[in-house]
């Protein structure tokens, strides 16, 4: 049956797959540059590498974004502010740790440097390099897309639970939930 439907301008799919398809093809990163890696991030967005073609548009507001690219050294002083930005991003969201500094402190094992951004933010993809080339960043972003595709979407159920809390019992019984 599936083949007869697919052949006539329709496709059958699951909600999971549809959501994950939508999510992974419109990853909007936040425009946050911390250090040297930010320059390579800019290069990835500029003329030659142009990650717009992968559906990635840099957004200046964390409210409109769903990927946080931690590009550069995270020092102790900036850590709470970065965490705040992460908290401001709506679910579902992902985090990419770009470069050695963000992943594990890199060449700065000093008094002022956070030794790995995964101590404050859960990281999905680590990209090695100091700094990674734009190609490296794009590879990391593609890996993130793969991760989203392979990992089942689980978070919308939780989001629906949150949504139900806001509704009154009358409405809920009205819509049969």
């Amino acid at each position: 049956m599936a083949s007869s439907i697919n052949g006539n301008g329709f496709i059958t799919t699951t909600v999971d797959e549809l959501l994950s398809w939508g999510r992974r093809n419109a990853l909007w990163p936040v425009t946050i540059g911390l250090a040297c890696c930010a320059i390579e991030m800019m290069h990835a967005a500029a003329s030659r590498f142009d990650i717009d073609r992968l559906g990635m548009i840099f957004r200046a507001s964390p409210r409109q974004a769903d990927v946080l690219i931690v590009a550069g050294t995270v020092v102790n002083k900036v850590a709470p502010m970065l965490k705040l930005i992460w908290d401001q991003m709506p679910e579902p969201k992902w985090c990419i740790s770009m470069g050695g500094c963000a992943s594990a402190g890199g060449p700065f094992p000093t008094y002022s440097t956070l030794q790995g951004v995964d101590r404050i933010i859960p990281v999905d993809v680590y990209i090695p390099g100091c700094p990674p080339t734009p190609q490296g960043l794009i590879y990391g972003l593609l890996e993130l897309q793969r991760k989203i595709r392979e990992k089942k979407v689980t978070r919308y159920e939780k989001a629906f639970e949150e949504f139900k809390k806001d509704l009154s019992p009358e409405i809920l019984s009205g819509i049969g939930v």
Partner: protein
Amino acid sequence: MPWASSQTLDRIKRTFRKITIDTQPNFVCLIVEDTQEITNILKHLKDVEDFRYFIDFHVIDFPKEKDRFLGQYILVNPYTFERLAIKVWFKSNKLPTAKEIFAGAKWAEREAYDMFGVEFEGHEDVKRMFMWEDYKYFPLRKDFPLGGIPEQKLPSLTEVLEGNTFPPSHDYDIMHTYVPTIKDIEKTEKSRITKKGQLVLNWGPLHPGTHGTMWFLFDLEGEHIIQTDVILGQLHRGMEKIAENLHYFQFLPYTDRMDYLSAVCNELSYVQAVEKLANIEVPLKARYIRTMFAELQRINSHLLWLGTGALDLGALTVFLYAFREREKIMDIIEGNAGFRLTSAFLRIGGVHYDLAKGTLEVAKYFVKDFYSKLKEYHGLLTRNRIWLKRTKDVGVITQEDVYQYGLTGPVARGSGVAYDMRKIDPYAAYDLVDFDIPVGDIGDVYDRYLVRMEEMYQSARIVEQCIEALEKMPENEPYVNKKHPAVLPPKEDVFNDLEDMVKSFRIVVHGENMPKGEVYSSGENPRGELGFYIYSIGKSSPYRLRIRSCSFYNLSVFPKVIYKHTISDAVALLGSIDPVVGETDR
């Protein structure tokens, strides 16, 4: 740079009999015994001897001495370009402030307080410069460890969320130095500014327009800024502390990561300081290669300024055009150094590799092409009505400001101060090439724009001349001084020659001891004078390495210039000062 001549020193000595004069090959300083007299001496040097150009103030820590902290000023006479250092001991951690004499000392003293915990009499605004308000330690003191003091359990969230795996996904120390909470940061913010106007507006720290992680607080009356404070330290990685713990050659890659837009220029300033200290001669070919790459890097850095500066003012096209050329330069650098951005291409005593095959042809083609591209940029902006309205007569910096705040680079030259280390104290091959220094007239944003555009043209000229000279050289000309004991031999020799292998092994493992002494040496970065002061006690790592950051001092004039201007002017002004956070914070 000629250091202060003996006549000048004699004159000063005649006026102040109590000071001693210390003359070293690359360093001349006055040692002031009486701490209270320093204000008079600085005033005298400024008003009578014309040492009006404030370059740097820093502190050195000697835990075993009676007075412990030694302060050091570096001043320049902008007419004769003589340079002079003044040393003075702190009396029970205190020194009279110099901020009334040199406005640039205000930030320098705040930094000294932050790093060493020294106090300044008469400086009411001594607050943390890089760390947050409640930070307990003074990191650059000799008794503070490089890694800080771990006091907080901070596990990796990857392990927390996904459980421990075997073998462990992470090999790390679970104890971490104290990470401030948002409350600590808010406290820092509140302590910086007392509200006088209607609204305090935060700009940054994670705002795309602030060129990194700078944090501005604007106190607004209507749309006009009546008070500004800049909170730095969102990228303070402890470079100076790292340098004290590494061998000389090991610090080289760290200089790349300071002003990450002009890596080769940073390296050049650094290796130059070490070469002066150890008295290393550099072969001619290496000097030309250094010059060529430094100038390519300067074009590269100015292109980023052009792109982002124009982007801040709403011209997106220029950004994409500028990055097109940047990619070409990065390809040339990558082909030679193996790295696009943080290249680590230079070595103490020469360069890492010989020129890669075909570099000269590519560079030649690039330069030939670049002149027409430069015309394109001029066509986009120079007579653009919107651009003129946003930049003309905005953010005027006077010559007096330049001297007072220690501004250097295009910011100084835009205001008509022809201060360029490449001409004053020629290094690398700058004495063998022909180029001009453009200077501005009134010192507004537009003047600085024109100065940088012209500098790109001049850089392209220098690159052309370097290519010409390099083409004439025989192919097996040495590119590194192999004879000197402190110079790492090139890799192909290490693999093929026993002696070189032993030498390389010795330097890498034990480091080479450098002679005792002091050096202050600086180079002309795209942003200004990047100076390295090295205090060597004869070991393989410096006792104190001070980085005189150009962005830091250039930025210090910002609160003064923006006073009674609008927020939109602040964006234009910051773009024209063009600071890089990696260098302001170090």
